[in-house]
């Protein structure tokens, strides 16, 4: 997964970095970096979600994912997203409170 990410990052950067005459457009670079950051965060989320849901839903690994395992994973994904959003909101509130107290 790491190598996949770094190759995406490398190719996107080199393809868009130079404009006509090789001049670097900071606006374009900033947009591309934002995209790469979003991609990195999505991958991070997926990696941790997969880890957690595998632990919760898969007991002794069988020859395939049975129906109950698949249902569990689907629910787990949604709950993980709910949790992530709850944590994000709570952390944001805490930061705002800290800033207000400074």
């Amino acid at each position, binding site marked *: 997964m790491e190598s996949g990410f*770094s190759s995406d990052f490398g190719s996107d950067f080199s393809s868009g970095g130079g404009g006509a005459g090789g001049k670097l457009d900071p606006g374009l670079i900033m947009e591309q970096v934002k995209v790469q950051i979003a991609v990195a965060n999505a991958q991070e989320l997926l990696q*941790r979600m997969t880890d957690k849901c595998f632990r919760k839903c898969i007991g002794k690994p069988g020859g395939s994912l049975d129906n109950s395992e698949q249902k*569990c994973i689907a629910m787990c994904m949604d709950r993980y997203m709910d*949790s992530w959003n*709850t*944590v994000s909101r709570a*952390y944001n509130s*805490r*930061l705002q409170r800290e800033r207000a107290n400074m």
Partner: protein
Amino acid sequence: RAAAREGRGVAVTAVTGMDTSSAAGLGGADPQLQRFIEVETQKQRFQQLVHQMTELCWEKCMDKPGPKLDSRAETCFVNCVERFIDTSQFILNRLEQTQKSKSAFSESLSD
């Protein structure tokens, strides 16, 4: 686990290029870019902590994933975030105190 952590560090570094303190070096060429790097670095720190706390609090607050996040679990997550930040602050404060006092840090570790 170690590989995942390293991957994250690489991802953040690769994307932001550096931390805020060394952003000034690059920003010298373009203040707009420097500002952008500072903002994105800050945002990324936030994101990383959300990832980390979600993972930690999931272990503490989630038993069996159900059809929705019940209010007990939701409260647990909120408390978990608050207590994690409290823990972090406590550690920093106490570290500062033990380093200020005349005994060496390693001495107070053996308390």
